[in-house]
Every structure is written in C-alpha cells, then in structure tokens.
C-alpha cells in the first residue's frame, strides 16, 4: 500500500459490523444444507420395486396390437381411397350409354372402315334449325359468316366411306344436344372424305338466310355436316356398358390371411390370425364363398390359483419370486394362492360360408357387400406363463408339480359367429385377383365358459384368388 500517496484516505473509511445474528443464520443454513444432504442420501436408499411379473408379455401384446392397428389403418385408408374413387367416378364421370356416345367410342368405331363401305342411312323428319359460323378460306379478306337454315321434311341420306384414313380426323363431341358445339366440332371435317347420296323423299323446304355476304355455303354442305353427325351417332352406338363384363361365372380358389382383433372380450384384448383356403363361386352380380382354415388366438390371462403346491426330490425350492419373500427350504412347499399371468395360445379349426352382393364392378375393380357365418372348433390351447416363477422351478431338474387348482376359465370347445364385411376385389391378371375385406364379427357364444360377455371383433380379410 502506498503510505504517502493518494490511497491513504482509504484507511479512514468507516468500519461496519455484520448484523446481529449473522453467525446463527449461517449456522442454520449450514445445518439445513447438511440435513438436506442427509435427506437426499436417505431418499436414494428408497427400496426398489420389481416390475410386475407378466408385464413384458402385456407389452409384447400391445406392440403386436399396435402393428395390427397400423396395418388396419393403412388397409382402411386404401379401402377408403378406393371407395372415394368409386363414389367420385359414379358422381362425376358420366356412364356411357347407347344414347350418348362419348368421343372416344365414336372415334374408335370409325378408325379403320374399309373404303366403299356403307356407313349408314338416316331418315329425318321434322324441322331442323341450324346455325353455323364458318371462316371462309376463299374470302379475301377472310370473313366470318353466319348461316341459318330452317328445314321441314324428310331426307334420307346414305354415307359411304371413300377415304378411310381421313376419317380419323373426325371428332364427335359427347353431348349432341348442344348444336353449336356439334357444328364447331364438325368444322375440321373433310367433306371430300364422305360422299353423300341424298335424295328427297318428301318436300324439303330450305329457307336459307344469308346473314352476310358469305359465299360457298350451300344447303347441302350444311346438311351434310349436321346429318353426318346424326348418322354417326345413330349408326355407331357405343359398346354396351362394361359393368359386370369382367366378372363371368366361374369358380375361383385361393389363400386367405385374416388378422382379427377383439378388444372387448371378457378377458382383455385378444388377437386372432386365421390362415385359410378359400373357394368362391362367382356369378355376374353375386358370389358365394367358403373357407376352411386354422385360427390362432392369443389372450393375455391373469388369474389367481386357489392352491398350488409342489415338491422336489432334491429338497430345495426357490420360491423367492412366488412369495416375493424369503427363499424357503424344504421338500414340500405350499405356496398358497398366487397370482399368475401370461398368455394363452389357442388354435381352432375354422369354417365359414358367406354370400356377397356385388355393388360395383368394372374391368379391374369390384366391390361387394358380404354376410356370412362361421364356426370354430378348438384344436388346442396352452397357457404359457414364461416368467421367473416357472424358470426358478424349471432349474430344479427334479421338480414335480404335485397339485394345482386354479380358477383359469375353461375355453369353449366350439363357438359360432356371424360376420359382415365390405369386399374390395382388384383384378391383378386375367385369372388372379386380390381381395381385401374389412369385417365386423359377432360371436354368438362366449369364448370362455361361465362368461356372460358376448364379443364383437374387427378384422381384415385378405386373400388372393385364382380363377379356374
């Protein structure tokens, strides 16, 4: 420190003392911190609880169910998209009929007519009003002229193809009722490609009014254009509606996979998988289908055994897990009532019949509303509590179960169901088709004896069919 410098005045600053009780506050705070540390140390020693036995099996079930749901959502999305596409097609696109040929149909009919062939005769009676606007190539400068005609009488016309290749230029609009549209569409028509042999069979009273100085517009030209359109329409009807043409009678066989989920059964959620052989008899607007297969079901069960006892010849049983307590030694162990959970796996022989009413069909896709019934016969069932309880026992090679009484529900040997679904059939090839059908199933009798619950399930029937 500088004794003679400018910092000397610092020595004369007033001294301050800490407030009363400062040490006590520090002391208290230190005690608190110590106490808190002690509390936390003791809290870290809280006992650890073991996760419940069988929880992993439940999680596995949940994961499988989630996958099934995802699959169902995707399938439902596809089904909904197909349904939406079908509805849009029905609502928006006009159905081709005999009276209203679409452009493509008329075009298709006249692509390759042979030269000289008679392509039709028309008989027209009545009054026709015609109005046409046309650009005349011969006019200089080019002018737009409008011609109107009111015709009364009957004219019979015959049209013969002379130059078939040029006919490909003809385009016919879908809606013939719009006269102006027809005439506009007919303008590119090459008149020299068709020779008209018209003859009047009744008086034809043309009243052609020239609205301007147009030239080279004659009655015949105008009538030819108009009548040709009519002729094409009358003489070349489109092919009949394609509905049901791709669904002839016949028998198909195939293979099906039917995942199914029952979320409201009286023993929690269960999942079915059915693998089946399918046969189908198909008629134009309906079909009958039958299937025979094997169903696999897995249900998580939790039940309490009333009494379980077992003995070993080695005189040692580890029942740490069972009683959650001390290891017992002895030749005989009476574990009393214990809770056991696990998954019951069952297999059934499944037979079903059903009938479908076709709602829509085209070359590729058909949809049907289907109802049917099924019956399942129990083939086997096995409860697999694969967990530490049994592992502990299995480790004792000479462990013998001597007595087990439990209230695990008995499964029904036979159960019946009603099923309804909406089938989407997609034709992959001439003989192969793919079927996807979301279903709703109702079980008449419960799966487990002594249960009052009747169950619904939802599922998806998928299959591939081969037409014999």
């Amino acid at each position: 420190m500088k004794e003679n410098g400018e910092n000397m005045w610092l020595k004369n600053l007033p001294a301050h003392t800490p407030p009363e009780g400062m040490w006590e506050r520090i002391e208290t705070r230190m005690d608190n911190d110590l106490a808190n540390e002690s509390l936390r140390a003791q809290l870290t020693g809280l006992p650890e609880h073991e996760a419940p036995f069988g929880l992993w099996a439940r999680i596995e079930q949940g994961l499988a169910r989630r996958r099934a749901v995802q699959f169902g959502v995707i399938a439902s999305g596809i089904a909904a998209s197909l349904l939406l596409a079908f509805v849009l097609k029905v609502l928006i696109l006009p159905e081709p009929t005999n009276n209203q040929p679409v452009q493509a149909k008329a075009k298709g009919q006249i692509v390759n007519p042979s030269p000289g062939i008679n392509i039709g005769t028309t008989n027209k009676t009545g009054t026709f009003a015609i109005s046409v606007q046309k650009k005349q190539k011969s006019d200089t400068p080019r002018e737009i002229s409008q011609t109107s005609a009111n015709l009364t009488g009957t004219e019979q016309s015959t049209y013969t193809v002379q130059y078939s290749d040029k006919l490909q230029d003809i385009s016919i609009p879908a809606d013939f009722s719009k006269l102006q549209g027809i005439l506009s569409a007919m303008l590119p028509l090459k008149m020299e490609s068709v020779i008209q042999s018209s003859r009047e069979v009744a008086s034809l009273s043309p009243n052609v009014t020239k609205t301007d100085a147009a030239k080279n517009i004659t009655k015949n030209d105008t009538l030819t254009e108009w009548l040709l359109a009519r002729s094409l329409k009358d003489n070349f009807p489109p092919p009949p509606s394609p509905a049901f043409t791709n669904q002839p009678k016949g028998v198909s066989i195939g293979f099906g996979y039917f995942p199914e989920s029952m979320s409201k059964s009286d023993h929690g959620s269960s999942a079915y998988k059915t693998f089946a052989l399918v046969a189908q008899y198909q008629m134009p607007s309906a079909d009958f289908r039958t299937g025979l297969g094997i169903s696999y079901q897995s249900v998580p069960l939790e039940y309490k055994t009333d009494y379980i006892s077992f003995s070993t010849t080695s005189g040692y049983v580890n029942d740490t897990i069972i009683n959650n307590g001390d290891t017992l030694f002895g030749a005989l162990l009476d574990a009393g009532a214990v809770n056991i959970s696990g998954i019951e796996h069952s297999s059934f022989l499944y037979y079903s019949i059903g009938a479908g009413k076709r709602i829509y069909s085209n070359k590729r896709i058909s949809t049907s509303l289907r109802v049917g019934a099924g019956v399942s016969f129990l083939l086997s069932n096995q409860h697999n509590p694969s967990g530490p309880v049994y592992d502990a026992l299995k480790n004792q090679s000479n462990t013998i179960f001597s007595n087990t009484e439990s209230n695990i529900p008995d499964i029904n040997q036979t159960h019946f169901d009603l099923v309804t679904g909406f089938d989407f059939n997609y034709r992959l090839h001439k003989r192969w088709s793919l079927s996807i059908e979301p279903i709703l199933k109702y079980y008449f009798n419960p799966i487990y004896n002594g249960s009052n619950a009747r169950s619904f399930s939802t599922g998806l029937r998928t299959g591939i069919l081969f037409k014999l």
Partner: protein
Amino acid sequence: MNHRTNILERDLVKGCTRNDRNAQRELYYKYCNAMFSTAYRILNDYENARDALQDAFIQVFRDIGQFRGRSTLGAWIKTIVVRSAWHKLRREKRLELEMLNGSYEEVLVQIPEYLNSEYLEKAILSLPDGCRTVFLLVEVEGYSHAETAKMLNVTTGTSKSQLFHARQLLKQRLVLKIDQK
C-alpha cells in the same frame, strides 16, 4: 466402463429402432424395475403403475427413433414414464395441481437414522398425490423445478409451493413417528 455402456445402449437403441424384439426385451428388463419404482411412487397404486409402465414402454418403443442421445437413455425413458404416470394420476383422480399460498421458506426435514427406508417410503406415499409427485421428482429423482414444472405442465411457482407443502407434511409425519418412538 462408461464407454462400453454407451456402445451397449447405442446397440440397444438401434435394435429397438429396427423393432428387434430381443433388443426391446433387453431394454425393458434393463430399466423395468427402476421405472416401475418411479411409476409406483407417483401413482401409489400397483395396478395403475403397471398400466402406466406398459403404456410408457410401448411409447418408448414407438418413439425411440426420436431419441437423439442428448441425455442418457435411462433419463429419456424416465421422462416418458413420469409423464405416463402423471397423466394416469390426473385422469384417475381428476387432479389439478395448483399454486398454494404462503411463503416458500425452506422446511427442514430431518430423518432419524433409526427410521428405515421402508418407513420413509411409506411416509412419502402417504403425502397427497400432487405434492407427492413434485417431491419425488425434485428430491428423489433430482429434477429442477423448471424441469418438473415442464413435465407436469404447471408453473415453476406451483412446483415450488407444492414442494414446500410436501416437505411440511413430511416433517409433521416424521416428527409424529419420532414422538411415538
């Protein structure tokens, strides 16, 4: 050791992302007891804790692709378990955590050494649901008030006031026990 653990965890995460059932099982058995203890203490009910843990692990396997390794895998799983348990608690008990009035001065909780951990846990489990959850998250699991508030979807002030309340009640119950002794 830590490096080895990280490699193991990374493999587990990769396996779970591929929906490898063995990896999922291994992950489950690695963490199930610790996670069940947390869920059980929050819910104070064996069946509900089991359901919450089941939901949590299904969510873990569904969302494991989103685990970026910013925290340990255990911490990430615990967050999901806590949220699952808290969600279940709120739904079952129609619980709304509110900020309590009063000062939040530190309450000293002294635990005599002769009280074993089972009794201490019983005392904690006897606390009301809301403040018990906050106490467990802050004091037992070591989350900060901000983290706790975020997980429980409450304000930091609510978390602090509930902890104050929990400590007060715990102190009373432990004092009672000491007096009985």
